[in-house]
């Protein structure tokens, strides 16, 4: 017979983290260890300074308040919340007092039953570490350093390179002919050259053979050394495929040598090619890059964009570091934009543009490389004045109209605020841009400050990137002369206070289409991005656009605040992740989150992610005397 008493407890706890990560059998054994306790309103569960009992607690019904002293409530636990566990594990007295805010029934769980289950279950310990600082000093969920640390072993196998087989290489003393025959024999496109100690010293690819031997002036009887490319890019073992892929993508290479210590000064362990990765991963950025390169119509690019979304979903599912995902997505977005510019020039007549020096900029979040989902376009053009070329601005605008229309067709919708290169305001010569920024910085209106927050994060995507660098240089030197501007920027960063109303409740939108949802962009991400921008500008640090990297840089520069900045970086990553997941779920920009749609763990993580906002804003207030 089903034991209804145990099942009653089981049915309840199985719905809540960390219990929902456990198996039914484990939960039933926990459930049978439970003591059901009734606490009338106002009664004390445990008191400050008391030695920990053998039980920790889950609220079944009612609410338990945790107090630092008689009047300051630190937290309120309601249905399904766990409390009083940290002192048990840390073996310290209770640091808080727990009192029934309402009449409550709570389940006391025997730690002796729970501990072994906690230790063997990664997700449970992670959850407790996240929420109760158990086993780690960091309150945040650390996005796994290696993208696979949180996926099952099946995934891990898929994601690491097999280094068990002997690597294929050829001695430096061998001839080109030897190398070529080996490649033919093994049907491989390249071979690593090693010295006598099996350290990689170079690589020969099909291309080398074609260009340097068949069409060039090397003879196949020469030593391989003569035509090899070196040095060989090396990585250390146990890197995930995703990391290897990223490395190939960013360095535009198709082979990596895995050596014992990751440099070419140690023994070769394995060779991994782009092809190996492709075979193992199917949908992957390298393939998408190729598809972009091969695209002949905007439709082809739209297909790639769709695949990018599915890739994003896959990556998020695997809990890959968001910073890494954003980099890949941004890389691909850039390539799509470049391709569109190429199409547009072709359509309008490449001849017209060959003498025009211009640079296509991404601005806003795309400029910060923080775009995960398909959102609105935000872009601009800087061009160089040239008296010998007529109608430069008109031509650039015509181009921008084409490009933005194409991007729109691909799925990047027009910016409703017209912040696009096709708007004459945002298609300017370098000199005009300098004036625009000077005006914004020296005689700013509130509107201008907002513009600045968008345009400040500009990033060159295509064509003459030195124009963008020149403009940045100008802005920074201008800022040196002007303290008022950064103050205004700081003030702007305080516009959105931290989004927690009372302990645990998110500030939800009160009216309009998104009533009762939480605006994660406006209320959580913008305050962080704004704070990062101001602080990094204050340090006169140029060329760092990405909010995560900005916080990491700030952590390096300001030792006494490094913990906060690290926390802020983590928080931003969590928010990006939450927004992307929400966006994929609802097939939109992910900006408006319904708290009810989130599971408890995500809600808690989100709540933790808001904490640095308040502290950052305090720093801004003090530093800029606001």
């Amino acid at each position, binding site marked *: *017979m089903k034991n209804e*008493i*145990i*099942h*009653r407890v089981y049915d309840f706890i199985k719905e809540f983290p960390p219990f929902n990560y456990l198996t039914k059998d484990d939960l039933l054994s926990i459930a*049978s*260890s439970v*003591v059901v306790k009734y606490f*009338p309103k106002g009664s004390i569960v445990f008191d400050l300074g008391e030695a920990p009992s053998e039980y920790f607690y889950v609220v079944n019904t009612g609410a338990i308040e945790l107090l630092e002293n008689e009047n300051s409530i630190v937290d309120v636990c309601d249905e399904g919340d766990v409390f009083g566990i940290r002192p048990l594990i840390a073996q310290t007295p209770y640091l808080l007092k727990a009192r029934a805010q309402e009449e409550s029934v709570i389940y006391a769980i025997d730690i002796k039953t729970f501990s072994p289950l906690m230790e063997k279950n990664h997700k449970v310990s992670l959850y407790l570490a996240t929420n109760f600082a158990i086993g780690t000093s960091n309150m945040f969920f650390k996005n796994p350093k290696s993208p696979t640390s949180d996926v099952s072993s099946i995934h891990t196998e898929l994601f690491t390179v097999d280094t068990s087989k002997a690597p294929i290489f050829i001695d430096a003393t061998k001839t080109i002919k030897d190398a070529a025959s080996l490649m033919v024999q093994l049907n491989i496109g390249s071979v690593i050259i090693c010295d006598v100690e099996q350290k990689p010293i170079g690589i020969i690819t099909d291309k080398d053979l074609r260009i340097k031997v068949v069409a060039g002036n090397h003879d196949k009887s020469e030593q391989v050394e003569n035509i090899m490319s070196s040095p060989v890019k090396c990585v250390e073992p146990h890197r995930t495929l995703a990391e290897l892929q990223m490395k190939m993508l960013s360095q535009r290479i198709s082979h990596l040598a895995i050596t014992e210590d990751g440099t070419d000064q140690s023994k070769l362990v394995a060779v991994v090619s782009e092809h190996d990765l492709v075979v193992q991963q199917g949908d992957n950025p390298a393939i998408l890059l190729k598809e972009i390169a091969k695209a002949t119509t905007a439709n082809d690019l739209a297909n790639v964009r769709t695949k990018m979304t599915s890739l994003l979903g896959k990556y998020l599912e695997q809990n890959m570091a968001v910073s890494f995902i954003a980099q890949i997505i941004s890389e691909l977005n850039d390539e799509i934009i470049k391709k569109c510019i190429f199409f547009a020039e072709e359509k309008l007549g490449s001849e017209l543009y060959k003498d025009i020096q211009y640079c296509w900029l991404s601005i806003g979040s795309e400029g910060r490389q923080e775009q995960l989902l398909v959102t609105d376009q935000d872009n601009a053009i800087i061009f160089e004045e040239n008296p010998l070329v007529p109608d430069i601005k008109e031509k650039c605008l015509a181009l921008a109209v084409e490009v933005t229309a194409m991007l729109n067709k691909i799925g990047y919708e027009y910016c409703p605020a017209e912040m696009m290169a096709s708007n004459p305001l945002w298609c300017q010569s370098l000199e005009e841009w300098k004036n625009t920024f000077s005006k914004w910085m020296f005689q700013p209106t509130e509107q201008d400050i907002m513009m600045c927050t968008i345009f400040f994060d500009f990033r060159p995507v295509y064509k003459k990137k030195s124009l963008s660098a020149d403009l940045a240089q100008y802005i920074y030197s201008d800022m040196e002369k002007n303290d008022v501007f950064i103050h205004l920027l700081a003030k702007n960063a305080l516009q959105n206070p931290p989004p927690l109303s009372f302990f645990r409740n998110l500030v939800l939108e009160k009216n309009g289409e998104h009533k009762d949802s939480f605006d994660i962009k406006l209320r959580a991400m913008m305050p962080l991005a704004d704070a990062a921008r101001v602080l990094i500008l204050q340090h006169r640090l140029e060329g760092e656009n990405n909010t995560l990297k900005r916080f990491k840089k700030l952590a390096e520069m300001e030792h006494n605040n490094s913990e906060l900045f690290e926390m802020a970086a983590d928080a931003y990553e969590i928010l990006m992740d939450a927004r992307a997941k929400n966006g994929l779920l609802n097939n939109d920009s992910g900006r408006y989150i319904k708290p009810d749609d989130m599971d408890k763990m995500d809600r808690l993580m989100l709540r933790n992610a808001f904490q640095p906002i308040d502290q950052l804003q305090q720093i801004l207030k003090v530093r800029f005397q606001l």
Partner: protein
Amino acid sequence: MKWNGIFPRLFTKNDISFSTEYQNYLKSYAAPNMKSKIVDQSFVVFDTETTGFDLSASRLLSLGAVMVQNNSFHINQSLSIAFQQSVRHTEDAVAIHGIVTNEQIGLAEEEVIKIFYDYIGSSVIVGHHTAFDIQMVQYCGKKYGFGPILNPTLDTSYLAKRLDNPYNPMQQNPKDYSLDALCERFDIIAKARHTADGDAYLTALVFMKIVKQFELKGVFYLKDILKN
């Protein structure tokens, strides 16, 4: 031996061939100290499921119990027992409890009775309309040499009525004092009703909350709720 049991009419002076287990129960039984506080007292909150409501024609199907003390109870010290069945149940029980007939699992009646008498020890017995359940158990126990249950009993339905109308509790509308009604009143989610153990669990929660209500009215001691 003088019977102060609750339903002495079930037994006559001739019923003296008591089992060893019952004699052990009698030896170890100590009446509760009426001066002790209610919260300090140990209570066995129990419920049974039967095939019907006719004492002589019905059979016990299952029994559930928890032991409440200090406003709490241990899940692993609870009872959740099915009786072995061989006789086909009457149709009305199936309708109420959703219990089907071909269950061959469970313990023999005699075993359950032994466990139960051992379990109740000197606790005060609590149940919702508990008189019937006690009668059922005693009626069944009689077959195996078990005499009357000496422990004082409390009926949560009656306690709740008394809470609302201390002087004329029986004038209250019984409908408002069903287990379902009380669960609703005390914000207890009444899931899996009509299983003995599930109802014992709910009744325990109801009981603890009722005791609190008595405390708020200045009733703290056992004597105050045991004396009707």
